[in-house]
């Protein structure tokens, strides 16, 4: 049951008979009349329970993008179904409009379209659909909520993908496809090709040139075609990314949790490494493996990654770093680049990480990608009054702690990248390219 504003207006209209008749019985009679009309109107409304509902729409959407969803309403009753419908999604699914008018003639079907603009990553569910059918006099109606399950997976935004083209260009420069043909450590022979103007003369392979010309020719014969060697960076290396989803990853820096920043970094690095021909394996870990992507390549890799990451939220647990070496061993047996996405904050909270690090760095190249908080920097610079001087001192202290931890990581054979949330993904990608160029993989 539900009443409308028209019913309230009808009750208010009772002031006319009450004033004219100047009697309490006029009031009683009018209210009774209103109640009768309301009951009759509600009884004449179409039953919302007889409606048949079907959902349709995509099952995935990237965060910050919007998607249309459709709800098909079939009127199963013999009366015209007119009223209001609400498709109840979780609040962070961001449905609009919240409620819509509905007018379905008896036995027919109509589509109710709405737009989802989710503002939180993860699995967003639709709880139910509520229909309020209004009677022909528009005084009262019948209402029912009907369970129509539906869900949409909101994938990570991957805002760092705008850094990808520039990094891919750098990768191509490293690669043999451009004319930089300096042999370096960590490059392998790619091919021989003809010299074109602009090539480095040092890359000319004289022996191949001689072979091509068929031996020393007579003087004055046409100049032999010069051959140059091209080199390309080593391929088929292994990159293992371990994302820490424990207690410290729940912290929110500049409107983004550390876990989201770690995901952004992982996605950019994976996309880049995959194009560079390396294998990428990712595990999200706190005290257990929350998500794992192994052996995927190409477009499949990114799809699998975002799909795995979407529903993962940080757990309020201390990450069990002692189990990480075994996890890495289970993912790779050869020497690999192991990227640990975890904050480096205070010596106390990273003790386990530091204790475990030598086991990894003995065999692998270890890179720790840590988010720094820009709020610390700004707090350290603000010295306007007494309270802010103390705050600046605390911020300096925190930064000093982070630096000590970073220094400890470096002493234990790891490498560290720290940056603000938006800068971390490109910084990690740049470090990867630097490794690639230096052949350290």
């Amino acid at each position, binding site marked *: 049951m539900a009443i409308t504003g028209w019913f309230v207006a009808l009750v208010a209209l009772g002031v006319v008979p009450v004033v004219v008749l100047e009697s309490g019985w006029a009031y009683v009679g*009018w209210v009774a009349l209103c109640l009768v009309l309301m009951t009759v109107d509600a009884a004449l409304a179409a039953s919302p329970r007889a409606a048949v509902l079907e959902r349709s729409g995509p099952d995935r959407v990237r965060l910050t993008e919007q998607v249309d969803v459709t709800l098909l309403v079939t009127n199963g009753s013999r009366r015209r179904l007119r009223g209001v419908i609400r498709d109840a999604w979780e609040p962070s699914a961001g449905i609009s409009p919240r409620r819509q008018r509905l007018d379905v003639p008896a036995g027919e079907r109509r589509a109710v379209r709405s737009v989802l603009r989710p503002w939180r990553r993860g699995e967003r569910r639709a709880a139910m659909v509520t229909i309020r059918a209004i009677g022909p006099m528009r005084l009262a109606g019948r209402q029912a909520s009907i369970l*129509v399950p539906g869900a949409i997976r909101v994938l990570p935004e991957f805002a760092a993908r705008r850094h990808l083209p520039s990094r891919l260009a750098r990768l191509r420069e490293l690669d043999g496809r451009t004319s930089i043909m300096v042999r370096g450590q960590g490059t392998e022979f790619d091919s021989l090709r003809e010299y074109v103007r602009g090539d480095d003369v040092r890359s000319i392979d004289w022996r191949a040139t001689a072979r091509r010309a068929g031996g020393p020719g007579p003087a004055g014969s046409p100049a032999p075609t010069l051959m140059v060697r091209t080199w390309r960076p080593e391929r088929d290396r292994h990159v293992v990314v371990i994302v820490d989803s424990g207690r410290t990853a729940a912290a929110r820096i500049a409107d983004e949790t550390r876990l989201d920043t770690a995901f952004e970094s992982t996605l950019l690095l994976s996309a880049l490494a995959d194009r560079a021909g390396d294998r990428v394996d990712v595990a999200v870990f706190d005290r257990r493996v929350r998500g794992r992507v192994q052996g995927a390549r190409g477009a499949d890799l990114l799809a699998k990654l975002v799909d795995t990451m979407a529903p993962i939220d940080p757990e309020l647990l201390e990450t069990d770093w002692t189990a990480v070496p075994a996890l890495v061993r289970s993912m790779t047996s050869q020497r690999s680049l192991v990227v640990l996405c975890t904050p480096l904050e205070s010596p106390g909270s990273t003790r386990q990480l530091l204790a475990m690090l030598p086991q990894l760095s003995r065999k692998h190249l270890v890179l720790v990608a840590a988010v720094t908080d820009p709020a610390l920097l700004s707090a350290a610079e603000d010295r306007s009054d007494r309270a802010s001087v103390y*705050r600046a001192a605390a911020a300096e202290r925190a930064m000093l702690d982070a630096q000590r931890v970073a220094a400890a990581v470096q002493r234990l054979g790891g490498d560290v990248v720290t940056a603000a949330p938006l800068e971390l993904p490109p910084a990690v990608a740049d470090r990867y390219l630097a490794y690639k160029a230096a052949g350290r993989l």
Partner: protein
Amino acid sequence: MTITAARADAPAGVVTPTVRRALRRWLFWIVVAVLLVAFAAVYGLTTRTASEANRFDADEAAPAGSRALVQVLGEQGIDVVVASTLDEALAAVDDPGATTLVAADPRAVLTAEQWQRLDGAAASVIVIEPPALAVGALAAEVAPGIPVIDAVRDEAGCSVPAAQRAGSITADGVALDASAAAGAEACFTGSEGSGLVTLEQPGGEGALHLLGASAVVQNGFLGVQGNAALALGLAGEHPILVWYVASPADLAGGDTPLSELYPGWVNPVAWLALTVGLAAAIWRGRRLGPVVIENLPVVVRTTETMEGRARLYATSGARLRALDALRVGTLRRLADGLALGSAAGVDDIVAAVAGITGRDLTGLRALLVDREPRDDGELVRLSDELLELERQVRRRVALDDRADGASP
């Protein structure tokens, strides 16, 4: 791509209960509510609480009323007339010589002029618990009473026959002081005053009884001691009894009730407005389906440890510790800016800074290492000086870089 295709025609899909199911679910509570209302109604009808307003009322059965006394007098053959206004009471007196007029004013509505009209109205006028106005109007020499509770007087101590017959009474009510009144009989006199004062009516024939001990006419006390004897003796002296308890209708100008001052539709319209408000509340309050709940992840602010530490520094006055943290940060940035490398010690940095800025070495060392702040003001000053030093070094380094870039 379709997420799901759910058919809702199965009854299991509907969350909202039908009217019948809702009624059945709420049946217990509806029954409980109805029973409570019925119980309250029955209880309210059977036990009327003794409210102060109905004291001495001839129809009041509560302990503070006087129904028992009036009933007994009626059974004894006394002709009892109950009046609720002064005019009514005076009109009821047909034969003043054979009438007892009992007057009480528990709500204190009568004025002195109205009390004066009782003078000479009947052969015996009894004023129960006389207020100061009544005493002043009818017996100016008697001092108005002070309240008395839990008092029992064992002896009449006067020549009024009814009082002598009664013997002992409960004197609760007010005590009157009749010592200054000539010709007054003061009965049941205690330390606070007398329970009953009898005297001649000032302007006419007949007796005036000022009954301060009002408990004797109340239902609750009628059965104890000689209360009944005194009350029956006083009120049953003459064959006709006019029992008058003043009501709000006695108020001056209270002839027209309030309801005649405004038009008849005001009350129904007020009720209608209330109903419209209720309907509007139901209209706006009926939500379109239940609220959807969502589990949100925990949100942790990163700066909490920093803020906590800052407050700890501030409350414990750890100025040196705070300043040292600032100094370490400054030294690190200076070392970075001067490209001294991570191995540079404090002395190297101080020397390098002194070299580039031309500052005094000891003063610089005091600022960067030695000086201990004595109060917060000095701490803030030192921190400002550290910032100023950093700025200066940055400026010099930038100038040098430009000079280096320009010279070759």
